[in-house]
């Protein structure tokens, strides 16, 4: 059964040094507030899993929290490269995390396999692709029925997954809408799942086939209005594209990065997210 907690308690009770952790969100619903809380609490030696590690992973890598990265696209979408990740990979600052790199198709399949309780995912992928030669976790399997050679990757089973969503009802059932990405699979594949939501409502008032995560699939829920910013929450506020563009400059330099993190993360609180989206909220 989902427990309603403060974000600080939800993170403290569910994330530990050395965990395999996914902070998921495919451009939409990225759990920035939860990631910032994890940064404030100063975890170490994390294996960070995410298809599209963007700003939050750049921040966590720059703060030295990552032992290993498992990902399929490490960029600032539409803007450029992740400069803290580059500094770590190219120069070892502040450390040199291990890299396990996949394609989107493989990671999506691997999360789905994790949710399905399977040890591996099978796909028609990586044909002619260089990743198959540098990542020992990309292997092949022969279809026992047709003889076709297919790609195989291990399923993703995080110790804990963090996602953001629109809303929960009072029991803790969670509704995810819009670009649902990999949110459902990330929750169902993980041993523990923490969800931040924009609000608690009496009734999710949705249609029968909506993407709803039942309360008993979730470990903890924290209410953090604006908690996806500068990502967005469909129906609540838009993506803050200007902040994504601005990040490129902030992350370009170790000192400007460190100063920004101190002011906007280490000395900030989850409540600050609500103010950050004030101008972005739509008339509903």
């Amino acid at each position, binding site marked *: 059964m989902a427990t309603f907690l403060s974000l600080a308690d939800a993170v403290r009770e569910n994330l530990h040094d050395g965990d395999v952790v996914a902070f998921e969100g495919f451009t939409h619903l990225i759990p920035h507030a939860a990631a910032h809380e994890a940064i404030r609490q100063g975890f170490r030696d994390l294996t960070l899993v995410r298809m599209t590690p963007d700003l939050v992973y750049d921040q966590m890598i720059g703060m030295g929290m990552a032992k290993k990265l498992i990902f399929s696209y490490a960029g600032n*979408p539409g803007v450029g490269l992740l400069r803290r990740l580059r500094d770590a990979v190219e120069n070892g600052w502040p450390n040199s995390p291990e890299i396990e790199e996949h*394609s989107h*198709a493989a990671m999506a399949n691997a999360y789905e396999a994790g949710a399905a309780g399977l040890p591996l995912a099978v796909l*028609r992928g*990586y044909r002619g*692709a260089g990743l198959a030669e540098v990542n020992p976790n990309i292997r092949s399997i022969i279809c026992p029925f047709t003889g076709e050679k297919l790609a195989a990757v291990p399923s993703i089973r995080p110790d804990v997954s963090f996602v953001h969503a629109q809303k929960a009802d009072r029991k803790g059932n969670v509704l995810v809408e819009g*670009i649902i990405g990999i949110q459902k699979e990330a929750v169902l594949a993980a041993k523990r799942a923490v969800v931040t939501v924009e609000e608690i409502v009496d009734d999710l008032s949705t249609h029968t086939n909506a993407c709803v995560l039942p309360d008993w699939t979730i470990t903890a829920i924290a209410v953090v209005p604006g908690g996806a910013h500068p990502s*967005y929450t469909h129906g609540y506020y838009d993506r803050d*594209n200007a902040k994504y*563009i601005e990040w490129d400059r902030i992350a370009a330099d170790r000192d400007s990065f460190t100063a920004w993190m101190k002011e906007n993360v280490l000395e900030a609180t989850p409540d600050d997210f609500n103010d950050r989206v004030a101008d972005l909220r739509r008339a509903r």
Partner: protein
Amino acid sequence: MTAAAFTPDEMMTIAASRALSSSDVCFVGIGAPSAACNVARLTHAPDITLIYESGTIGTAPDVLPLSIGDGELCDTAVTTVSVPEMFRYWLQGGRITIGFLGAAQLDRFGNINTTVIGDYHNPSTRLPGGGGAPEIATSCGEIYITCKQSKRALVEKIDFFTSFGHGEGGDHRERLGITTRGPTLLITDLAIWKPDPVTKEFTVVSLHPGVTRENVQETCGWTVRFADSLEETPAPTALEIGTLRDLKARTAAAHSGK
């Protein structure tokens, strides 16, 4: 104003848009491909199905998305599916006719690198990586590529095979059991290229207005082959250039956060 001035970038986008039709189901990469696909939709291909890897199918954005998952894509889509469904049912399932990719590094056989410059394990520049491209390159019916020409981008040998084009050329795709056509069109800011039917090496078939063979060779890292009957790409029409500029202006206003 049919002879409107235009930049090489604009010519590239418009030439790419002309390759698309209303019957296409197109998997859209971000950047120049996204602009080209939406110019096509707003001019001669109103019924084209545009798909972005975030799961949005049949999307019709009013402004170009900054990322592949902007809310605008979902708001205007026929339907939005999960990411596993997108890659399993729609891409791997063979529903996509054209994959439209950009490239950081490209070779003469349409192999693309967006992963690293230098050695994979000790790169001089760590690029974002492949995202959806490795499977887009082999699961879509055919692949169109757009890329600005420079000796850094069009190289003799790419540093990493992020996505497979025609490999070493010839029947390399068939030898790997890949049944899709792979790269069939390369549109740069200077020219239109198509693969040789046998060797699969990209060959210049049309020069954009005002571009010389020397311009193309000077900005390409391999010895360029030109078709025997070289054409000139028609200049952008007033409708095409107006549509592209309006789209870019709306996009710039939307992304500035103002």
